[in-house]
Protein backbone atom coordinates (compact mmCIF):
# COMPACT_ATOMS: atom_id res chain seq x y z
CA UNK A 1 0.00 0.00 0.00
CA UNK A 2 2.80 2.40 0.91
CA UNK A 3 4.47 1.59 -2.35
CA UNK A 4 1.36 2.40 -4.41
CA UNK A 5 0.73 5.57 -2.43
CA UNK A 6 4.27 6.66 -3.15
CA UNK A 7 3.77 5.92 -6.83
CA UNK A 8 0.57 7.95 -6.88
CA UNK A 9 2.26 10.85 -5.06
CA UNK A 10 5.16 10.75 -7.49
CA UNK A 11 2.80 10.83 -10.44
CA UNK A 12 0.86 13.74 -8.94
CA UNK A 13 4.07 15.68 -8.37
CA UNK A 14 5.20 14.96 -11.89
CA UNK A 15 1.96 16.24 -13.37
CA UNK A 16 2.19 19.44 -11.30
CA UNK A 17 5.80 20.10 -12.36
CA UNK A 18 4.91 20.05 -16.04
CA UNK A 19 7.69 22.60 -16.79
CA UNK A 20 10.32 19.82 -17.20
CA UNK A 21 10.87 17.79 -20.31
CA UNK A 22 8.90 14.58 -20.80
CA UNK A 23 12.09 12.43 -21.11
CA UNK A 24 13.54 13.62 -17.80
CA UNK A 25 10.16 12.98 -16.13
CA UNK A 26 10.04 9.37 -17.33
CA UNK A 27 13.64 8.64 -16.26
CA UNK A 28 13.08 10.07 -12.78
CA UNK A 29 9.86 8.04 -12.49
CA UNK A 30 11.80 4.94 -13.52
CA UNK A 31 14.46 5.45 -10.87
CA UNK A 32 11.82 6.19 -8.26
CA UNK A 33 10.05 2.93 -9.07
CA UNK A 34 13.21 0.84 -9.09
CA UNK A 35 13.91 0.92 -5.32
CA UNK A 36 10.36 0.24 -4.07
CA UNK A 37 10.10 -2.53 -6.66
CA UNK A 38 13.22 -4.24 -5.32
CA UNK A 39 11.93 -3.85 -1.77
CA UNK A 40 8.62 -5.41 -2.71
CA UNK A 41 10.36 -8.30 -4.48
CA UNK A 42 12.54 -8.91 -1.42
CA UNK A 43 9.55 -8.85 0.91
CA UNK A 44 7.63 -11.23 -1.36
CA UNK A 45 10.60 -13.58 -1.54
CA UNK A 46 11.06 -13.57 2.24
CA UNK A 47 7.34 -14.17 2.65
CA UNK A 48 7.50 -17.16 0.30
CA UNK A 49 10.52 -18.58 2.10
CA UNK A 50 8.81 -18.18 5.45
CA UNK A 51 5.65 -19.83 4.11
CA UNK A 52 7.70 -22.72 2.76
CA UNK A 53 9.48 -23.13 6.06
CA UNK A 54 6.17 -23.20 7.92
CA UNK A 55 4.90 -25.79 5.45
CA UNK A 56 8.04 -27.92 5.87
CA UNK A 57 7.84 -27.68 9.66
CA UNK A 58 4.23 -28.80 9.54
CA UNK A 59 5.13 -31.75 7.33
CA UNK A 60 8.01 -32.69 9.63
CA UNK A 61 5.71 -32.58 12.65
CA UNK A 62 3.08 -34.71 10.91
CA UNK A 63 5.69 -37.24 9.83
CA UNK A 64 7.21 -37.33 13.30
CA UNK A 65 3.82 -38.10 14.82
CA UNK A 66 3.43 -40.98 12.38
CA UNK A 67 6.98 -42.12 13.09
CA UNK A 68 7.90 -42.20 9.42
CA UNK A 69 10.22 -39.25 9.15
CA UNK A 70 13.43 -40.37 10.74
CA UNK A 71 16.36 -41.51 8.68
CA UNK A 72 15.16 -40.67 5.23
CA UNK A 73 18.22 -40.32 3.04
CA UNK A 74 19.41 -36.84 3.67
CA UNK A 75 21.66 -34.87 1.34
CA UNK A 76 23.22 -33.11 4.32
CA UNK A 77 24.11 -36.40 5.97
CA UNK A 78 25.64 -37.65 2.72
CA UNK A 79 27.60 -34.42 2.44
CA UNK A 80 28.78 -34.78 6.06
CA UNK A 81 30.30 -38.15 5.26
CA UNK A 82 32.48 -36.53 2.60
CA UNK A 83 33.91 -33.93 4.98
CA UNK A 84 37.24 -34.56 6.74
CA UNK A 85 35.54 -34.28 10.12
CA UNK A 86 38.38 -35.85 12.06
CA UNK A 87 40.84 -33.29 10.70
CA UNK A 88 38.34 -30.50 11.34
CA UNK A 89 37.91 -31.75 14.89
CA UNK A 90 41.65 -31.91 15.50
CA UNK A 91 42.11 -28.42 14.04
CA UNK A 92 39.34 -27.14 16.30
CA UNK A 93 41.15 -28.69 19.24
CA UNK A 94 44.40 -26.96 18.27
CA UNK A 95 42.61 -23.66 17.78
CA UNK A 96 40.88 -23.77 21.15
CA UNK A 97 44.14 -24.75 22.89
CA UNK A 98 45.70 -21.41 21.99
CA UNK A 99 46.52 -19.53 25.16
CA UNK A 100 44.44 -16.38 25.47
CA UNK A 101 45.84 -13.13 26.91
CA UNK A 102 44.79 -12.63 30.51
CA UNK A 103 42.66 -9.57 29.77
CA UNK A 104 40.70 -11.39 27.06
CA UNK A 105 39.85 -14.52 29.05
CA UNK A 106 36.83 -13.25 31.04
CA UNK A 107 35.29 -11.75 27.89
CA UNK A 108 35.84 -14.90 25.84
CA UNK A 109 34.44 -17.25 28.48
CA UNK A 110 31.52 -14.98 29.31
CA UNK A 111 30.71 -14.86 25.61
CA UNK A 112 30.86 -18.65 25.43
CA UNK A 113 28.69 -18.96 28.54
CA UNK A 114 26.13 -16.56 27.11
CA UNK A 115 26.01 -18.36 23.79
CA UNK A 116 25.67 -21.84 25.28
CA UNK A 117 23.87 -21.11 28.57
CA UNK A 118 26.64 -22.08 30.96
CA UNK A 119 26.41 -21.06 34.59
CA UNK A 120 29.60 -19.19 35.43
CA UNK A 121 28.72 -19.03 39.13
CA UNK A 122 29.45 -22.76 39.36
CA UNK A 123 32.95 -22.52 37.89
CA UNK A 124 35.58 -23.66 40.36
CA UNK A 125 38.32 -21.15 39.51
CA UNK A 126 38.40 -17.45 38.56
CA UNK A 127 37.97 -17.12 34.78
CA UNK A 128 41.45 -15.64 34.36
CA UNK A 129 42.99 -18.93 35.44
CA UNK A 130 41.74 -20.86 32.42
CA UNK A 131 44.47 -20.32 29.86
CA UNK A 132 42.48 -21.46 26.84
CA UNK A 133 38.92 -22.16 25.78
CA UNK A 134 39.74 -25.87 25.76
CA UNK A 135 40.81 -25.67 29.38
CA UNK A 136 37.71 -23.70 30.31
CA UNK A 137 35.51 -26.21 28.51
CA UNK A 138 36.52 -29.08 30.84
CA UNK A 139 36.33 -26.90 33.92
CA UNK A 140 35.62 -28.40 37.31
CA UNK A 141 32.73 -27.10 39.35
CA UNK A 142 32.73 -25.61 42.85
CA UNK A 143 32.53 -28.06 45.68
CA UNK A 144 28.93 -28.93 46.52
CA UNK A 145 27.31 -27.69 43.32
CA UNK A 146 26.49 -31.26 42.27
CA UNK A 147 25.34 -33.15 45.34
CA UNK A 148 25.23 -36.90 44.81
CA UNK A 149 21.94 -38.57 45.70
CA UNK A 150 22.96 -40.66 48.69
CA UNK A 151 20.04 -43.11 48.47
CA UNK A 152 21.69 -46.54 48.09
CA UNK A 153 18.75 -47.71 45.97
CA UNK A 154 19.22 -45.22 43.18
CA UNK A 155 21.32 -44.82 40.10
CA UNK A 156 22.53 -41.27 39.48
CA UNK A 157 23.20 -39.34 36.31
CA UNK A 158 26.87 -39.51 35.34
CA UNK A 159 26.72 -36.16 33.50
CA UNK A 160 24.87 -32.90 33.11
CA UNK A 161 22.68 -33.13 30.04
CA UNK A 162 19.33 -33.75 28.40
CA UNK A 163 17.62 -37.13 28.53
CA UNK A 164 17.14 -38.30 24.95
CA UNK A 165 15.89 -41.82 25.48
CA UNK A 166 15.52 -44.36 28.24
CA UNK A 167 13.77 -47.64 28.76
CA UNK A 168 14.09 -51.36 29.19
CA UNK A 169 15.75 -53.62 26.64
CA UNK A 170 13.22 -56.34 26.07
CA UNK A 171 13.06 -57.46 22.49
CA UNK A 172 15.42 -59.64 20.50
CA UNK A 173 18.67 -57.90 19.73
CA UNK A 174 18.30 -55.46 22.67
CA UNK A 175 17.60 -52.48 20.49
CA UNK A 176 18.24 -48.96 21.76
CA UNK A 177 16.09 -46.28 20.19
CA UNK A 178 18.06 -43.44 18.64
CA UNK A 179 14.94 -41.63 17.51
CA UNK A 180 11.39 -42.75 16.87
CA UNK A 181 11.32 -45.27 14.08
CA UNK A 182 14.95 -46.34 14.21
CA UNK A 183 17.10 -48.24 16.66
CA UNK A 184 20.52 -49.79 16.95
CA UNK A 185 21.47 -52.87 18.90
CA UNK A 186 23.18 -52.60 22.26
CA UNK A 187 25.88 -55.00 21.10
CA UNK A 188 26.65 -52.68 18.14
CA UNK A 189 27.18 -49.88 20.61
CA UNK A 190 29.13 -51.85 23.22
CA UNK A 191 30.98 -54.25 20.94
CA UNK A 192 30.55 -57.84 19.85
CA UNK A 193 32.57 -59.15 22.79
CA UNK A 194 30.48 -57.28 25.33
CA UNK A 195 29.47 -58.89 28.62
CA UNK A 196 25.89 -57.83 27.86
CA UNK A 197 23.62 -60.36 29.56
CA UNK A 198 21.77 -61.93 26.68
CA UNK A 199 19.94 -65.22 26.40
CA UNK A 200 19.75 -67.24 23.23
CA UNK A 201 16.15 -67.79 22.21
CA UNK A 202 15.34 -71.32 21.17
CA UNK A 203 13.12 -71.19 18.10
CA UNK A 204 11.55 -74.54 18.98
CA UNK A 205 10.17 -73.28 22.26
CA UNK A 206 8.08 -70.29 23.17
CA UNK A 207 9.59 -67.34 24.98
CA UNK A 208 8.26 -68.23 28.44
CA UNK A 209 9.46 -71.75 28.43
CA UNK A 210 12.37 -71.11 26.15
CA UNK A 211 15.74 -72.56 26.94
CA UNK A 212 18.13 -69.85 27.95
CA UNK A 213 21.79 -70.29 27.33
CA UNK A 214 24.93 -68.28 27.41
CA UNK A 215 25.96 -66.14 24.47
CA UNK A 216 29.60 -66.79 25.11
CA UNK A 217 29.79 -68.67 21.82
CA UNK A 218 28.38 -65.68 19.97
CA UNK A 219 30.88 -63.45 21.72
CA UNK A 220 33.69 -65.62 20.44
CA UNK A 221 32.96 -64.47 16.89
CA UNK A 222 35.76 -62.36 15.58
CA UNK A 223 35.15 -58.70 14.94
CA UNK A 224 35.95 -59.18 11.30
CA UNK A 225 33.45 -61.92 10.79
CA UNK A 226 30.72 -59.88 12.38
CA UNK A 227 31.55 -56.60 10.73
CA UNK A 228 32.05 -58.03 7.27
CA UNK A 229 28.74 -59.83 7.48
CA UNK A 230 26.76 -56.65 7.90
CA UNK A 231 28.64 -53.72 9.31
CA UNK A 232 27.27 -51.59 12.11
CA UNK A 233 23.63 -52.60 11.95
CA UNK A 234 24.22 -56.30 12.21
CA UNK A 235 21.44 -58.11 13.96
CA UNK A 236 22.69 -60.13 16.89
CA UNK A 237 19.41 -62.05 17.01
CA UNK A 238 18.26 -64.55 18.08
CA UNK A 239 19.76 -63.41 21.42
CA UNK A 240 17.39 -61.61 23.76
CA UNK A 241 18.35 -59.46 26.74
CA UNK A 242 17.79 -60.95 30.16
CA UNK A 243 15.04 -59.34 32.17
CA UNK A 244 15.90 -56.15 33.96
CA UNK A 245 18.29 -54.67 31.41
CA UNK A 246 17.82 -50.92 31.02
CA UNK A 247 19.36 -48.07 29.05
CA UNK A 248 19.49 -44.29 29.23
CA UNK A 249 20.84 -41.86 26.63
CA UNK A 250 21.94 -38.39 27.78
CA UNK A 251 23.02 -35.63 25.41
CA UNK A 252 25.48 -32.95 26.53
CA UNK A 253 25.13 -29.49 24.99
CA UNK A 254 28.27 -27.42 24.38
CA UNK A 255 27.61 -25.27 27.45
CA UNK A 256 27.18 -28.20 29.82
CA UNK A 257 29.64 -29.45 32.40
CA UNK A 258 31.65 -32.01 30.41
CA UNK A 259 33.07 -34.36 33.02
CA UNK A 260 31.74 -37.86 33.47
CA UNK A 261 31.21 -39.40 36.89
CA UNK A 262 30.39 -42.83 38.14
CA UNK A 263 26.62 -43.51 38.29
CA UNK A 264 26.92 -46.21 41.00
CA UNK A 265 29.51 -48.07 43.02
CA UNK A 266 30.96 -50.49 40.49
CA UNK A 267 33.99 -52.39 39.29
CA UNK A 268 35.17 -51.37 35.85
CA UNK A 269 36.46 -54.57 34.33
CA UNK A 270 37.47 -53.31 30.92
CA UNK A 271 37.45 -50.64 28.28
CA UNK A 272 36.77 -50.73 24.56
CA UNK A 273 37.75 -47.91 22.19
CA UNK A 274 36.00 -47.60 18.83
CA UNK A 275 37.79 -45.12 16.56
CA UNK A 276 34.85 -44.37 14.31
CA UNK A 277 33.67 -41.18 12.64
CA UNK A 278 33.20 -37.84 14.32
CA UNK A 279 29.82 -36.66 13.12
CA UNK A 280 28.13 -33.82 14.93
CA UNK A 281 25.80 -34.99 17.69
CA UNK A 282 23.16 -32.28 17.66
CA UNK A 283 19.45 -32.95 17.44
CA UNK A 284 19.29 -32.68 13.67
CA UNK A 285 22.25 -35.02 13.22
CA UNK A 286 20.59 -37.50 15.55
CA UNK A 287 17.51 -37.44 13.37
CA UNK A 288 19.26 -37.59 10.02
CA UNK A 289 22.46 -39.63 10.34
CA UNK A 290 21.84 -43.34 10.51
CA UNK A 291 23.37 -45.20 13.44
CA UNK A 292 25.02 -42.03 14.68
CA UNK A 293 25.77 -43.47 18.11
CA UNK A 294 27.42 -46.58 16.68
CA UNK A 295 29.26 -44.70 13.90
CA UNK A 296 31.00 -42.14 16.07
CA UNK A 297 34.20 -42.58 18.00
CA UNK A 298 33.46 -43.79 21.50
CA UNK A 299 34.83 -45.35 24.64
CA UNK A 300 32.87 -48.11 26.31
CA UNK A 301 33.51 -49.00 29.94
CA UNK A 302 32.09 -52.28 31.15
CA UNK A 303 31.87 -53.79 34.56
CA UNK A 304 29.75 -55.11 37.38
CA UNK A 305 27.76 -53.48 40.13
CA UNK A 306 25.60 -54.87 42.91
CA UNK A 307 22.73 -55.56 40.52
CA UNK A 308 24.77 -57.07 37.70
CA UNK A 309 26.00 -55.69 34.42
CA UNK A 310 26.92 -52.03 33.93
CA UNK A 311 28.26 -50.34 30.80
CA UNK A 312 28.83 -46.73 29.93
CA UNK A 313 29.52 -45.46 26.41
CA UNK A 314 30.98 -41.96 26.01
CA UNK A 315 30.43 -40.91 22.40
CA UNK A 316 32.46 -38.11 20.83
CA UNK A 317 31.42 -35.54 18.23
CA UNK A 318 33.11 -33.18 15.78
CA UNK A 319 33.64 -30.36 18.25
CA UNK A 320 34.19 -32.60 21.25
CA UNK A 321 36.24 -35.30 19.64
CA UNK A 322 38.52 -36.62 22.32
CA UNK A 323 37.67 -38.44 25.51
CA UNK A 324 40.05 -38.41 28.43
CA UNK A 325 39.84 -41.39 30.76
CA UNK A 326 41.14 -40.65 34.25
CA UNK A 327 41.45 -44.33 35.15
CA UNK A 328 43.66 -44.83 32.08
CA UNK A 329 45.56 -41.57 31.45
CA UNK A 330 47.64 -43.05 28.62
CA UNK A 331 44.62 -43.62 26.38
CA UNK A 332 44.52 -41.26 23.40
CA UNK A 333 41.41 -40.76 21.28
CA UNK A 334 40.74 -38.68 18.15
CA UNK A 335 44.03 -39.76 16.59
CA UNK A 336 44.61 -39.44 12.87
CA UNK A 337 43.41 -42.54 11.10
CA UNK A 338 46.26 -44.91 10.35
CA UNK A 339 44.12 -47.08 8.18
CA UNK A 340 41.52 -45.94 5.74
CA UNK A 341 39.88 -49.32 5.94
CA UNK A 342 36.68 -49.03 7.89
CA UNK A 343 35.60 -50.30 10.35
CA UNK A 344 38.68 -50.81 12.44
CA UNK A 345 38.33 -53.38 15.20
CA UNK A 346 37.82 -51.86 18.64
CA UNK A 347 40.86 -51.66 20.85
CA UNK A 348 40.27 -53.48 24.11
CA UNK A 349 41.86 -53.20 27.52
CA UNK A 350 41.15 -55.45 30.50
CA UNK A 351 41.87 -53.77 33.82
CA UNK A 352 43.94 -55.49 36.45
CA UNK A 353 43.39 -57.42 38.63
CA UNK A 354 41.40 -59.51 36.22
CA UNK A 355 37.87 -60.08 37.41
CA UNK A 356 37.97 -57.13 39.81
CA UNK A 357 39.23 -54.27 37.69
CA UNK A 358 39.06 -50.71 38.97
CA UNK A 359 36.61 -49.92 41.75
CA UNK A 360 34.74 -46.64 41.46
CA UNK A 361 32.38 -45.12 43.96
CA UNK A 362 29.16 -43.36 43.03
CA UNK A 363 30.03 -39.82 41.94
CA UNK A 364 33.73 -40.48 41.32
CA UNK A 365 35.12 -38.56 38.37
CA UNK A 366 36.13 -40.99 35.66
CA UNK A 367 36.36 -39.21 32.30
CA UNK A 368 36.05 -35.90 30.48
CA UNK A 369 35.10 -34.79 26.99
CA UNK A 370 37.71 -32.51 25.44
CA UNK A 371 37.43 -30.07 22.59
CA UNK A 372 38.88 -31.40 19.39
Amino acid at each position, binding site marked *: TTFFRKVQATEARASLNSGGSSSSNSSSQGSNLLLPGATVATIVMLGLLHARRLYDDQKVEEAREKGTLEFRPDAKATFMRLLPLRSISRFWGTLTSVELPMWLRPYAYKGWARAFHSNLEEVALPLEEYASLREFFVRRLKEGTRPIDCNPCCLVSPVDGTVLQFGELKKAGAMIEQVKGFSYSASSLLGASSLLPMAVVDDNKNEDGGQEGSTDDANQKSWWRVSLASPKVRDPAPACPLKG*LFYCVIYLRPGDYHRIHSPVDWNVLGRRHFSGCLFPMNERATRTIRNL*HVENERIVLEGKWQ*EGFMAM*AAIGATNIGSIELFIEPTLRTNRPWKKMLHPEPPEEQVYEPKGTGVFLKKGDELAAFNMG
Partner: protein
Amino acid sequence: STVVLVFQAPISEPSADKSMSAEFRFCIKKGDRVRMGEALGRWHD
Protein backbone atom coordinates in the same frame (compact mmCIF):
# COMPACT_ATOMS: atom_id res chain seq x y z
CA SER B 1 28.67 -35.54 22.90
CA THR B 2 26.48 -38.22 24.36
CA VAL B 3 26.62 -40.75 27.15
CA VAL B 4 24.72 -44.03 26.98
CA LEU B 5 24.24 -46.17 30.07
CA VAL B 6 23.28 -49.84 29.76
CA PHE B 7 22.73 -51.63 33.04
CA GLN B 8 20.97 -54.38 34.87
CA ALA B 9 18.66 -53.30 37.64
CA PRO B 10 16.33 -55.02 40.09
CA ILE B 11 13.07 -56.42 38.80
CA SER B 12 10.25 -58.01 40.72
CA GLU B 13 6.87 -59.56 40.17
CA PRO B 14 4.08 -56.99 39.79
CA SER B 15 2.61 -56.01 43.13
CA ALA B 16 -0.51 -54.12 44.12
CA ASP B 17 1.40 -51.21 45.60
CA LYS B 18 3.49 -49.99 42.71
CA SER B 19 5.06 -47.20 44.75
CA MET B 20 6.72 -49.76 46.99
CA SER B 21 7.71 -52.09 44.16
CA ALA B 22 11.22 -53.47 44.33
CA GLU B 23 11.42 -52.98 40.59
CA PHE B 24 13.73 -50.37 39.19
CA ARG B 25 11.87 -47.34 37.83
CA PHE B 26 13.19 -44.33 36.01
CA CYS B 27 12.32 -41.04 37.68
CA ILE B 28 13.02 -38.92 34.60
CA LYS B 29 11.15 -38.00 31.45
CA LYS B 30 12.34 -37.71 27.90
CA GLY B 31 13.69 -34.20 27.30
CA ASP B 32 14.38 -33.58 31.01
CA ARG B 33 17.52 -31.71 31.95
CA VAL B 34 19.47 -33.74 34.47
CA ARG B 35 22.52 -32.80 36.49
CA MET B 36 25.33 -35.01 37.54
CA GLY B 37 24.45 -36.76 40.81
CA GLU B 38 20.68 -36.54 40.38
CA ALA B 39 18.80 -39.83 40.46
CA LEU B 40 17.90 -41.33 37.10
CA GLY B 41 15.99 -44.21 38.63
CA ARG B 42 15.20 -45.85 41.94
CA TRP B 43 14.00 -49.06 43.48
CA HIS B 44 13.00 -50.12 46.97
CA ASP B 45 15.10 -52.42 49.01
